[in-house]
């Protein structure tokens, strides 16, 4: 029998979603259908066309043009993607479509220096390495020992050669890098979050959801993003992303940072449907241009939910 989420268990969650999303009925409806399965081609090892030709022989697939994504339409057995030859050879990474967007927004290039502060399990690190063609340099950090093991394994499987993996508290790492006078022109801050955008795929996220946790995560996120600015070069860009929808972890973080530090939002386009940030939350009107940040709702692309913002030093 298929598992379903009992939203009645958390009425506060339901109320918040209703206040947040105008078409909230569509949000709840999408939990009744299967989430799309996406993979990301690894062009460090194979071209998208070659991978499509290989996968076409075993599954029904759809090329999501303008992105590195391929949708797997076939009904797969549990573990079928991960145990396939093409996965083991590192030709693709199982990654949700919306989770590919932060790196598309950041757009790291060959000679860039890129810091991925909360890197495990490595989907975005390896996506960046792919765009950088294993050149430039990446520092990929995570604090958790178990998560670092997964990061190591994914970096190896994807054939990434330009990355240094560090295991440090991200705030401490930024302080150490600042002391060494090392800065980066591309930084990704994709910190731990309440994961509201992923509950369709991971019911346990819903089980542990609570408002106190959201507030506590938001203060950690502000600290990480604020400290990341210590090592952002003069003309550099920083992308802040979460896989959650809560304004406390998204617009509130951006407002706090843009007010406290001399930074500005940078406009960017995404190749999938997204919406602007929300203008107000619980009676408070945000004091920045919310049209420059992106919200991706699960019902819009049958993907996970995400929030993405890009910042730089004010000119």
């Amino acid at each position, binding site marked *: 029998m298929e598992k379903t989420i009992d939203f009645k268990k958390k009425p506060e969650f339901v109320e918040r979603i209703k206040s947040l999303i105008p078409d909230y009925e569509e949000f709840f409806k999408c939990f009744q259908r299967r989430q799309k399965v996406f993979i990301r081609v690894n062009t*460090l*090892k194979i071209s998208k066309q070659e991978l499509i030709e290989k996968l076409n022989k075993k599954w029904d697939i759809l090329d999501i043009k303008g992105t590195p994504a391929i949708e797997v339409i076939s009904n797969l057995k549990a573990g079928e993607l991960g*145990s*396939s*030859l093409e996965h*083991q*050879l*590192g030709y693709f990474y199982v990654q949700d479509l919306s989770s590919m967007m932060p790196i598309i927004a950041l757009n790291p290039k060959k*000679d860039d220096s890129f810091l991925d502060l909360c890197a495990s399990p490595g989907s975005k690190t390896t996506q960046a390495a792919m765009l950088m063609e*294993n*050149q*430039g*340099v*990446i520092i990929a950090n995570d604090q958790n020992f178990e998560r*670092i093991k997964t990061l*190591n*394994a994914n*970096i*190896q*499987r*994807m*054939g*990434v*050669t*330009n*990355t*240094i*993996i*560090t*295991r*440090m508290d991200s705030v401490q*790492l930024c302080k*150490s*890098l600042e*002391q*060494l006078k*090392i800065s980066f022109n591309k930084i990704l801050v994709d910190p731990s979050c309440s994961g509201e955008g992923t509950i369709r795929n991971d019911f346990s996220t819903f089980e542990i959801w609570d408002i106190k946790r959201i507030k506590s995560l938001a203060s950690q996120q502000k600290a990480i993003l604020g400290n990341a600015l210590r090592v952002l070069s003069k003309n550099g860009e920083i992308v802040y992303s979460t896989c959650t929808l809560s304004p406390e972890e998204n617009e509130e973080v951006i407002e706090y940072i843009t007010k406290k530090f001399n930074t500005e939002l940078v406009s960017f386009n995404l190749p999938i449907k997204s919406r602007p940030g929300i203008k107000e939350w619980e009676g408070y009107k945000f004091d920045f241009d919310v049209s420059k940040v992106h919200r991706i709702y699960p019902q819009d692309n049958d993907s996970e939910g995400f929030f993405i913002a890009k910042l730089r030093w004010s000119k």
Partner: protein
Amino acid sequence: MIKITFLKSKEKKVLLNSLKSYGIEKINAHFLMLGKNKIRIFTGNLSKKEIEKLNQFLRIDNLGLYLCNKEKGIRLSMDALHLFKEQINQKIIDLNQEQAKKFLSGKEIEIDVSLPQDFYVLRFGKDFIGMGFVSGRNVLNFIPRGRRVYSN
């Protein structure tokens, strides 16, 4: 602090000579070791000095990609094979579907002809799927448990 040992130029020369036997001529990277026999390559645009300085102040867990084990000859990792797929043109054994399936599941396989004892690159179709140590007609398997494919 992790112990990073950069290969000395003599060691690098020996390694590059061994790789030439597979047709690999060009590698633009730092060669280093974090453990005893495992050689890694790093292509990030940092000098040896810069890496050493970072290692003094940061808690580095790993860097670059595991290239090969040099215990008994050079055994390239599955992922290193892909880095050099355009260059590898020697010491290749082409496997049929049955052999590839057996090899990918972690088992030893038998090939049709007897070859001199050495490490060989195994290929299935256009894909390099690993390296095996050939002794006569037997091919020893080194595919790590986590990378085995049990059905395809």
